[in-house]
């Protein structure tokens, strides 16, 4: 309970600042219009004029909320103007990329833990791969997958999302697979366990908490990848494409609603993955951490 009050205060403060910002930033336009008409608007007229512009510099929170509601609930989900439709396209790419990232990250981690050569060879490149801005690579990934026969944009988007999401999984899995200490490893040696058995019965189970802890970061990264992947690839559907369209047509409401739809999608994904994490840790007899 004593956490709710501060959080609510902060959130309310953010909304207050937002309203003030949209008043001060949109005021110039209202004053301009009034000057042209030869009027001097009173303060209440100014406030009314700044809160409901169709192309505001900073839309007021309730405008964004209305636009979001309109895009999510009032449009048929098959409509090209429905945020659910675009969100679903992005979600698909995110989930494929997430799956790709998990498989790639776990496979690489196992390779790196089992072989010292792989550790020395691949680990530096895994780090370097994350310092390369993936947006620069994105158009090339599209061209290459296209040349290899992929017809939809889903494949390159999933690859870009996977490229960003494999790294947190890799790092956590390496940490997890090497987490059993010398005592535990020695015990298994006294049992005469083979390398295989050590891996399946000790290392893999020991790595699970690390694995689940990395998933939340990975899914957030995957969503960023899916959105970024829509920008330079000429996509026309998806939340990233929606932002691009809003920017090209100079329509701020489309950009703001797409941004908040992306934020809502991220929150839902993190919430679901967090739930899976809790269920899994309980099933493995873990304490709530």
């Amino acid at each position, binding site marked *: 309970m*004593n*956490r709710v*009050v*501060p*959080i*609510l*205060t*902060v*959130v309310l403060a*953010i909304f207050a600042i937002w309203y003030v910002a949209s008043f001060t930033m949109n005021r110039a336009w209202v004053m301009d219009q009034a000057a042209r008409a030869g009027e001097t608007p009173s303060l209440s007229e100014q406030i009314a004029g700044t809160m409901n512009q169709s192309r505001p*510099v900073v839309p007021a929170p309730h405008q964004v909320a209305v636009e979001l509601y309109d895009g999510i609930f009032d449009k048929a989900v098959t409509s090209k103007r429905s945020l659910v439709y675009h969100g679903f396209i992005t979600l698909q790419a995110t989930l494929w990329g997430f799956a790709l990232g998990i498989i790639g990250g776990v496979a690489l981690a196992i390779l790196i833990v089992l072989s010292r*050569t792989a550790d*020395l*060879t*691949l*680990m*530096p*490149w895994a*780090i*370097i791969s*994350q*310092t*390369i*801005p*993936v*947006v*620069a*690579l994105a*158009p*090339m990934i599209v*061209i*290459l997958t296209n*040349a290899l026969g992929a017809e939809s944009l889903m494949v390159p988007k999933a690859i870009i999302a996977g490229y960003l999401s494999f790294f947190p999984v890799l790092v956590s899995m390496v940490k997890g697979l090497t987490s059993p200490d010398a005592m535990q490893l020695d015990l298994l040696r006294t049992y005469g366990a083979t390398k295989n058995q050590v891996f399946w019965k000790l290392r893999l189970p020991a790595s699970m908490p690390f694995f689940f802890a990395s998933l*939340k*970061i990975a899914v*957030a990264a995957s*969503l*960023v990848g899916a*959105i*970024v992947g829509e*920008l*330079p690839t000429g996509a026309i559907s998806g*939340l*990233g494409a929606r*932002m*691009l369209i*809003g*920017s090209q047509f*100079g329509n*701020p409401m489309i*950009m*703001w609603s*797409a*941004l908040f739809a*992306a*934020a809502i999608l*991220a*929150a839902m994904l*993190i919430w679901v993955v967090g739930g899976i994490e809790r269920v899994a840790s309980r099933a493995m007899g873990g304490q709530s951490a």
Partner: protein
Amino acid sequence: MIIDRALRVFYPLGFGILVLILWEISVHAFNIPPAILPAPTDIGEAMANSTGTLFADWLQTVVKGALTGMIMGALAGVAAAIAIDRSDFLKKGLLPVANFVAALPIVGVAPIMVMWFGFDWHSKAAVVVVMVFFPMLVNTLAGLQATDRMQRDLMRTYSASHGQTLAKLRLPAALPFIFNGLKICSTLALIGAIVAEYFGSPTQGMGFRISTEVGRLGIDMVWAEIAVAAVSGTVLYGIVALIERRMTFWHPSQRTGR
């Protein structure tokens, strides 16, 4: 030790060279048209032939967009963390919110920033500021909690003021966390600066060059830009890691077995 260190350089370097050689061979062996995948030698040639353009793009995107934005955003993040740290109430309220925001796809503010600040580098720097602010804030706040009771009590017995405790104990103790944040930011900064260019840019910049050259099928030039971006990203990360090693030599993670 020396052999170990040599292997540490030799293996990754060898792997990189091997990939480049295989790339070169397969481009020639399968007759892959340069409009799909140019050979590394062609890319090298493109780089050598247009160093001027590449340098101008690099200046525009990396120095003006990413670096300015990263420095401003990081300073703002640390300053905000120090300010918030004084109040328990703010910390309790802001930390969950900041943690949540840090996980959101903040790149989405790029079109809004381009609308606000125009096509030049200011909008790119603004996107980077917003992107790096929250990771820095969260990491610095976590770092400022990293001292234990005993250490803080010792400072109190010295009758150190809040500022003194901050400067002599808590900020140094927070450095590993701050550098962790900076490392995350160094990769975010380049992504932010390039993404913002897809929403509008002057006629230079890496994102601009990549999107126009893709349209003109100048794929070798695109790969040249990617190479520059890759080296910039890695060097930026490397510089942060180097400064970290200098400044947090006392931390267990920096110890080398000497």
